[in-house]
């Protein structure tokens, strides 16, 4: 398997036929797709929430740094989430 190379200028959106939503009963963000779902920790959900098909990776990173100024090493975690989501097919590159 080739490593996903996430570039600052890349733009991502949720994969086709996938849905992202907040689940009150679970207190979690989830991604839903045919016959399956994943539950996302708050941090992972915050990344996916920002994928509107317009924001670049660098915008997402900047916005998250802004929103969570206390969090250390946040950039590598965000890129890690992009890599994971891409490898799982939850998001697609525009």
């Amino acid at each position, binding site marked *: 398997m080739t490593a996903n190379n996430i570039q600052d200028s890349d733009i991502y959106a949720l994969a*086709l*036929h996938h*849905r992202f*939503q907040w*689940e009150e*009963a*679970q207190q*979690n963000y*989830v991604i*839903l*797709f*045919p*016959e*399956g*779902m*994943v*539950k*996302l*920790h708050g*941090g*992972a959900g915050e990344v996916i929430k920002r994928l509107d098909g317009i924001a670049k990776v660098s915008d997402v990173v900047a916005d998250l740094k802004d929103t969570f100024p206390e969090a250390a090493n946040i950039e590598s*975690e965000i890129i*890690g*989430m992009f890599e*994971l989501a891409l490898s799982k*097919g939850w998001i697609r590159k525009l």
Partner: protein
Amino acid sequence: MTQASLGESVVQKTVHAQQNNGVSASLTHTQPLWLLAEVTYRCPLHCAFCYNPTDYDKHTQNELTTEQWLQTLRDARKLGAIQLGISGGEPLLRDDIEDIVIEAKKLGYYSNLITSGVGLTEKKIQAFKEGGLDHIQLSMHDITEEINNFITNTKTFELKKKVAAMIKNHGYPMVLNVVIHRYNIGHMREILEMAQALGADYIELANTQYYGWSLVNRSQLMPTKAQVDEAEAITNEFRANPDNKMKIFFVVPDYFSDRPKKCMNGWGEVFMIVTANGDVLPCHSARSLPNMQFPNVRDTGLAYAWQESPAFNQYRGDSWMKEPCRSCSEKENDLGGCRCQAFLLSGDAEAADPVCSKSPHRHLIDQAIIDSTNPVLVAQPIVFRNDKNSKKIMAGEFKDRVEGFHSLP
């Protein structure tokens, strides 16, 4: 449909996700994530491997009303259910599926229609699209008309190809479910190629699991270990090719494993099934278990069913386990396997699933594998799933086919 077509995949996803950083999934979830609505047991197909109970015919006259289904959807959503499977039987035999779809959308479900394709017209699929149905799973049976028509006991081969195209044209993800058995396992490569040619996004290769009608027809349906191994090798080869984008779920044939499946991802953990007549079950076959009263939505709310009913609590966790499960270092991996399989085959609902090589009943599985190569047993005719045969089974006919099991499959 198959007993495995819902569930296994969501379970795989949750379990996989748990291994990843940043993604969590709880294995001891106390909220249902899946509501499977088996809205009718009526079906135009007569599949030899159907998991529906062999006595289904008694539930074809007492189906829930539309309003009862809508209320069930609302109540399950409040409990946390998020994936909705609309299944059967053939759900399209009811004329209120559109109402169910609209309500599901309103409530925020991800809705999955699980269909044979019979009854899916342009008009209906358009209405489903507008109503917010998220996904349609279509059952396919083989690349050959002969096997398709034989195993379903109908002439539906051409229709299924047309429906597949219709699903694609309406912008739906195409998810095909193919139940694998002796008659089509030799066509694995061709089945995968067909799915790809149809533009499938996902294909589920559901090796037959033996419940309901498929248990009655076990000797007739079971492939050999060599065939299963070859099918898996072909599947892996297909997956390894980076040009093949289609996702493949291979449902493991448990008889050929030495550890059981983690059935339903645990009893009362994530799945709630409401059957055509309103029974609330933790798994498809649970009514084959002895001394158990299942709640019914006509009498009790779903919250009671999930949280408090004795039936849903009976096999939660592992305190019910006996040896060899109780002290087994692997018990968390499979929770002792399937309660229904344990009871149907061994007569003890708390026994280890006989599939397990540590089970004192493993010989029952080995014997079933031997039986499936016994020319006398194999020559017995398939008992197709239809109303007439269901009535006959309830009336005590086909004794030789069911007497080896500890309750009616």
